[in-house]
């Protein structure tokens, strides 16, 4: 751990708002400091992760054996709907927004985001949206039409409780929060970069977050429009999605997936960004092919708007349309896939240190690849015609969303927790967390590929006693329990290390981006001084005055 003295520009940066920090709970709740807001986003995500995790365990208990009646179908249907909705909107989004919120100003040498009060608003909109969604449980029933809420099942005749209305309102409110946060981050990145930090020198995490915010701005409106139209149907007896009275069930699907597909890239790109920060530091080498990684991110961003109907291959849209979306979906695999090679090449000939962060990042490479490959198989749509809407798809989505986003987030948290709190997370507990998570995760989800190929459809509250279905489901359930235990280990690690973790210092990992050029945790105004920025790794340049990056043409 080194504290680097540096000859900075010595200039303090202008502060957007007065920076006094109130003490106590009220100080936190009313804070407009991006660091506190970021942490509150993370805590919100953690709480909902608990809820979503319990929902997952309930499902796995019900599915452990054939023809089970631990949960009625009506309850199970609410549970699987809430599990998906919670994990995407109230775990992945807040956690990623929280990390972005915390880190972006620090990584660009700013003292806060462009609109600190708006920042607080986005956080509270998200929290309110989540509370509203969960309120449905005690208001007559949670939504039970699935997280993508297909019509006409989601319309009043078939979903008569107010669950779907709470779903719509909760997501509308949270969605507005996301768009507001996206605007905030884009303006911050465009306008608040420290002198010398050109766009081509941005840390890759910042690049990925920037592209993600544009995706949010263009994709959330599709969801908002859909939800608004659904609410008008349900509450004002209108006809958007009711085929019986002139509406179109298929339009819902197009609109939802016009949001839904970019959404999954919204949720994975920041994780790619975290991996792109962690792997270089723990390999002691710069990222391999920075320009290609950045460019492929932009390509993914653009392509992500052109693939949505690969969620609709079974709808019967016709071979021409199926073909078009197969082309775009196969194409998007390329910029996504080549990143894996860039990350491996970064490790190649490096001096790798397997901290817990690096363990998660390295295993991410393999589990995300599994998810990516099953995704490619789905783009080959005659295969999709067999395996979509089965447990094969459940396996795919969890490999990319959990193996991808969550493993990436774990890597990021082990990496940046010292910066946020001033203390290291325990490596000992961390290794237990990692290994139990890796084993539990693969046990839970790998068998699902087989279950799908064997004919088990998704969203079923139980299944007949067909050969080996019970066995594979039981293995999956045991894996889920292990994942639960692993998550508890993680929470314990955070709890214990917060109080008595090893003191971190400014730069415990000897990393190179700007957030490591200030104390851990940073002062309210983030930086007393900014080091000179002449390359992508300002702190590397300070450490190596005889061969800084900018002398190598980088």
């Amino acid at each position, binding site marked *: 751990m080194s504290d680097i003295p540096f000859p900075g520009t010595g200039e303090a940066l202008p502060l957007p708002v007065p920076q006094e920090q109130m003490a106590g709970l009220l100080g936190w709740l009313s804070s407009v400091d991006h660091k506190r807001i970021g942490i509150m986003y993370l805590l919100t995500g953690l709480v909902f992760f608990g809820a979503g995790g319990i929902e997952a365990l309930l499902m796995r208990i019900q599915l452990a054996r054939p023809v089970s009646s631990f949960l009625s179908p009506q309850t199970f249907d609410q549970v699987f709907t809430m599990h998906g909705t919670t994990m995407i909107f109230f775990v992945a989004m807040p956690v990623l927004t929280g990390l972005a919120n915390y880190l972006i100003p620090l990584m660009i040498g700013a003292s806060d985001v*462009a609109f600190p009060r708006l920042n607080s608003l986005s956080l509270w909109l998200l929290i309110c949206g989540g509370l509203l969604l969960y309120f449905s449980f005690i208001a007559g029933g949670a939504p039970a039409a699935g997280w993508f809420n297909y019509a006409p099942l989601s319309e009043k005749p078939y979903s008569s409780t107010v669950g779907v209305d709470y779903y719509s309102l909760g997501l509308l409110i949270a969605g507005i929060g996301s768009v507001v946060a996206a605007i905030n981050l884009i*303006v911050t990145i465009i306008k608040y970069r420290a002198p010398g930090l050109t766009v081509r020198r941005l840390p890759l995490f910042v690049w990925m977050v920037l592209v993600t915010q544009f995706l949010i701005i263009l994709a959330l409106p599709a969801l*908002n*429009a859909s939800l*608004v139209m659904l609410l008008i*149907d349900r509450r004002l007896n209108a006809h958007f999605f009711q085929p019986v009275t*002139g509406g179109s069930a298929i339009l819902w699907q197009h609109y939802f997936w016009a949001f839904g597909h970019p959404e999954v890239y919204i949720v994975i790109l920041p994780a790619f960004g975290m991996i792109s920060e962690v792997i270089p530091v723990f390999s002691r080498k710069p990222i391999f092919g920075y320009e290609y990684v950045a460019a492929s991110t932009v390509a993914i961003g653009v392509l992500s708007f052109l693939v949505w109907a690969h969620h609709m291959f079974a709808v019967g849209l016709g071979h021409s349309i199926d073909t078009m979306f197969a082309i775009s979906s196969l194409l998007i695999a390329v910029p996504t896939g080549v990143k894996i090679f860039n990350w491996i090449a970064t490790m190649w000939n490096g001096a790798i240190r397997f901290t817990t962060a690096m363990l998660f990042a390295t295993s991410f490479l393999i589990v995300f690849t599994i998810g990516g490959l099953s995704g490619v198989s789905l783009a080959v749509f005659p295969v999709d015609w067999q395996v979509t809407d089965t447990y094969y798809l459940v396996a795919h989505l969890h490999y990319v969303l959990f193996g991808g986003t969550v493993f990436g987030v774990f890597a990021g948290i082990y990496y940046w927790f010292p910066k946020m709190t001033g203390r290291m997370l325990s490596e000992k507990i961390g290794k237990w967390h990692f290994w139990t998570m890796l084993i539990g995760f693969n046990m839970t989800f790998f068998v699902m590929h087989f279950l799908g190929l064997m004919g088990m459809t998704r969203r079923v509250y139980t299944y007949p006693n067909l050969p080996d279905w019970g066995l594979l489901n039981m293995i999956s359930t045991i894996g889920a329990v292990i994942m639960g235990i692993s998550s508890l280990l993680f929470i314990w690690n955070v709890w214990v290390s917060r109080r008595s973790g090893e003191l971190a210092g400014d730069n415990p990992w000897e990393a190179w981006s700007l957030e490591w050029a200030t104390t851990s945790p940073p002062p309210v105004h983030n930086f007393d001084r900014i080091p000179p920025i002449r390359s992508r790794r300002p702190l590397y340049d300070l450490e190596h005055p005889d061969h800084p990056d900018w002398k190598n043409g980088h």
Partner: protein
Amino acid sequence: MDTEAQAIAAVRWDNNKLAMLLFLLSEGTFFAFLIIAYVYYHAISNTGVEAAKVLDPLKAGIYTVFLLSSSFTVWFAEKGLRRGNQKAFRSWLLVTLILGAVFLVGQGREYLHLYGEGVTVSGNIFGTSFFTLTGFHGFHVLLGLIALAVIFVLALKGDFLERHSSAVETVALYWHFVDWIWVVIFSVIYLWAVF
């Protein structure tokens, strides 16, 4: 650069206007989806017949002129402010407010008329898509009028004595959006009904 040019450059794409631009990008996308829905239903069902029957493009066209003029008047107001002419600034703001309000009143009257003809949001798919699209637009106009009213009151109190105001230009940007998206909506709904 002299201070005048510097001030202009500072305001040109400052935080607020950049944020508003991004916001309008998202709102524009939202409207695009509502417009596409209207177009889709118009194409696959007989809403076109209904639209031709009950809509009055001429009346709506007149109110449209009011709304689009307000885009020019708010621009005149901005020019007045830049020239240091507080009176012009405030007067043109007031005219903008009035023109916008007239548009909304016109919309309201049309809604009442349609309601009398039995066209409601729950009646059929035409009613559903028409009221949703125009309703959300009207709502955005209302929010714009509120913002303009706030600016106007602050202007009367002397808050905008400088020659450049980020707040004024940002609100004006929103107002332009609301006006010109109406051109698209008007064409899709009223002109298409007739042609």
